[in-house]
């Protein structure tokens, strides 16, 4: 897998979520994703960026354009140094929320992506990566 471009953005405030959404949209358009696919990855990014901010206490998102043989795609990796997630399986369940959200963030972002990866260590932080192929 070849990484064609990569850009890291800070997620420290709700304005940063808006900037991240706009940057993801730009990358998705540049990659040639259709409107529905653009909307899906932008929405997934918004959910995950909010998680990073609300539960992780802020962090970063890495936007990467990838190429794997004939396929190209957009990978987004959200990282925080927050408290971590105790039970990832539970956190992925629709309707489960530890905050005041609707509990659709993680599960929803997973459904809106082709590939989804999450690693979390208590007391060290959480890293969520999604990928949408063209």
């Amino acid at each position, binding site marked *: 897998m070849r990484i064609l471009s990569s850009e890291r953005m800070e997620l420290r*405030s*709700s*304005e940063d*979520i*808006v900037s991240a*959404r*706009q940057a993801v*949209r730009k990358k998705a358009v540049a990659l040639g994703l259709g*409107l*529905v696919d*653009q*909307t*899906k990855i*932008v*929405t997934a990014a*918004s*959910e995950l960026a*909010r998680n990073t901010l609300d539960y992780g206490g802020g962090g970063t998102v890495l936007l990467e354009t990838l190429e794997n043989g004939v396929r190209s795609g957009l990978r987004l990796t959200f990282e925080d140094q927050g408290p971590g997630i105790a039970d990832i399986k539970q956190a992925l369940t*629709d309707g489960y929320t530890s905050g005041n*959200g*609707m509990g*659709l*963030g993680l*599960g*929803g972002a997973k*459904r*809106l992506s082709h590939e989804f990866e999450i690693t979390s260590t208590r007391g060290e932080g959480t890293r969520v990566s999604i990928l949408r192929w063209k």
Partner: protein
Amino acid sequence: MERIPILKMGRFLLVTIQVDMHDRLALALQDDLTSQIVKWKARGVLIDISALEMVDSFIGRMLGTIASMARLLDSDTVVVGMQPSVAITLVELGLSLKGIRTALDVEKGMAALQDAVGGADSTLSKAGRDENSQF
């Protein structure tokens, strides 16, 4: 602070969301709308989201909260103009916006509000002097 404008049209309030909303702007809209509903004794709220390229769970929750709060203040809410790509994404996200009334465009949304508050009788005749007033 930046605000989303609320227009008064007769007994209804009209909001067109044209910016990519950050959280504080969304919360300010909730506050502004509820106080305007009370101030003008508005019977309906029409929210046009045709310019929104994305609705995530935060915005979805905000729309639901506005509809619930408006309901408690004796006002109906209709959300209009959702883009097809947004609708497809919302369903996959798992958000069905239960309890939120929708219409395809502003015209159909206004008709739905007029039906909901009991016909077009006084709505149009009383609307004259306040029409298009902005605050």
